């Protein structure tokens, strides 16, 4: 009889990756139209232009891939931010990058450019994320400490939030305002493969920047002085993590809208599974983020609501109670 041994870190991450892959496949099987996925896939492989294969490849596949990639980026960036700030309540939004990305997209709506060319929305989002990162870079490059960077992030967030409200306030017609509000609530629905390519091309190097910061984040668990004495350059680390988050999260938000709480919650779920060292949490939190996002997106399609709930609404509804639980546990520790 074999005894149950705890999984090694590598095995845990591999198991989480497999669950994420399974959910990606499951996500393609769920939707408004009943679909024989295997028949549709066969049609596509053999080049038969059936309606089923069209739905699978043009609608379901982009949605599933976008969910996996966005969730991965959010979870990964959340783990990186918590490691950098050594604060369990940090998430990708603290640096102000997602808020600025949302503002950039809203400006495109407001200017009416979304009707003019297809990529206006994601490009606007990326411009917003880039603007926020440039500000943060300038501050980090000048040697500003971690806490001051957070304050800068809070300032960027509030400014982006205020300007987004201003755009809503001054919106020329109520339909445009409604469109903005719906977009801000986040969704994976009706994105094309081209949208996804646009999000993934910058996201992939962002993931790499974050995933390779593991050893420096491990060292930071003993504080900035010790991390520095162990040979890590903190200024470069901050710049690397800002750039990584901007690429991984900024590009995703630009395509999906705001999806809250995944970046905050995923690292906390990953820690008991993968170990508490920040470097170990990174990949695990990425896959947990993908699982959460795909799970929420499958759930909202199974719910009999009309119209379909927005993804950001579902993740926040699930995430907020979790935050309360977390606060209760933290009170016990403090």
């Amino acid at each position: 009889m074999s005894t149950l041994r705890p999984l090694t870190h590598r095995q845990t991450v591999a198991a989480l990756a497999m669950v994420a892959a399974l959910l990606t496949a499951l996500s393609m099987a769920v939707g408004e139209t009943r679909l024989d996925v295997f028949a549709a896939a066969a049609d596509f492989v053999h080049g038969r232009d059936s309606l089923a294969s069209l739905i699978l490849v043009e609608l379901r596949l982009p949605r599933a891939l976008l969910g996996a990639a966005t969730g991965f980026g959010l979870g990964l960036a959340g783990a990186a931010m918590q490691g950098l700030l050594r604060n369990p309540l940090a998430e990708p939004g603290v640096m102000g990058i997602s808020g600025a990305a949302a503002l950039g997209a809203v400006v495109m709506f407001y200017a009416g450019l979304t009707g003019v060319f297809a990529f206006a929305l994601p490009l606007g989002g990326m411009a917003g994320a880039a603007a926020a990162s440039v500000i943060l870079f300038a501050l980090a490059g000048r040697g500003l400490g971690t806490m001051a960077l957070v304050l800068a992030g809070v300032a960027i967030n509030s400014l982006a939030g205020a300007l987004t409200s201003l755009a809503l306030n001054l919106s020329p017609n109520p339909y445009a305002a409604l469109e903005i509000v719906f977009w801000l609530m986040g969704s994976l629905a009706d994105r094309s493969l081209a949208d996804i390519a646009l999000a993934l091309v910058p996201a992939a190097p962002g993931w790499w920047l974050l995933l390779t910061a593991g050893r420096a984040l491990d060292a930071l668990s003993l504080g900035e002085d010790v991390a520095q004495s162990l040979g890590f350059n903190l200024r470069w680390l901050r710049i690397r993590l800002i750039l990584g988050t901007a690429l991984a999260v900024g590009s995703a938000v630009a395509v999906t809208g705001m999806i809250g709480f995944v970046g905050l919650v995923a690292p906390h779920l990953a820690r008991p599974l993968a170990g508490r060292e920040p470097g170990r949490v990174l990949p695990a939190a990425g896959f947990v983020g993908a699982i959460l996002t795909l799970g929420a997106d499958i759930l909202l399609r199974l719910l009999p609501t009309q119209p379909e709930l927005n993804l950001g609404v579902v993740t926040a509804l699930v995430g907020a109670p979790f935050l309360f639980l977390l606060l209760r546990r933290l009170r016990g520790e403090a």
Partner: protein
Amino acid sequence: MIVTGHLRLSLKGVPVLRGIDLSLPRGQLVGLIGCNGAGKSTLLRVLAGLVPADEGTVLVDGQPVGTIDPKERARLIAYLPQTGPAHWNLSVEALVRLGRLPHFANPRRDGDAVARALDATATAHLRGRDVDTLSGGERMRVLLARALAVEAPVLLADEPIAALDPRQQLLVLGLLRRMAEAGGLIVAVLHDLSLASRFCDRLVLLNRGAILADGPCGAVLTDANIAAAYGVSAVRVDHAGERFILPWRPV
């Protein structure tokens, strides 16, 4: 070996180091002593290359500390801060293993170094415990083990025995002493003058950012120096061929 040339440093306009000239060869346990705010911790951080001095030089084996590749410097100089945070409630073993980060990962060599560091600090029995469950003294020894796991020829330790019970103080100072005898350079900030004079090869007495005295313990801990640096009178007691010093009254 570390040589400093006329180090000066001001923090936010307040001069903290005012011209420090030190030559610290290998094979010495050097006690860095002085009253609160004398500049001991700052000097240690400058020696470790964590803060650049405003003026003057720190040479490590002849090379300015700021120009050494950070990973190379990390393998050369281990640094133990006075009150370090330990986030994420890591296991003791995982925490000590952080000392291996400057080295190229090598599971066997890293595992051996971690085991040696745990044994040296008598913390091997704690290796599976979570850091947040440790007492203050146990935590201090585990953090010391982390610094030892670097296996650097130079160890800069800021009050390594502050939180320890008497037995552990003696054991840790004995350990630092043996490391110096084995050819290491150990610079430790200490407040207990009796223990400092018993275990150190040499004392460096700082006063208001300058070196008041530097040399063998007997030459440094004179009544005049103790009164000038600490504002106390001291009594001396001879016991079994060793002399120890007890701060007695504020003057």
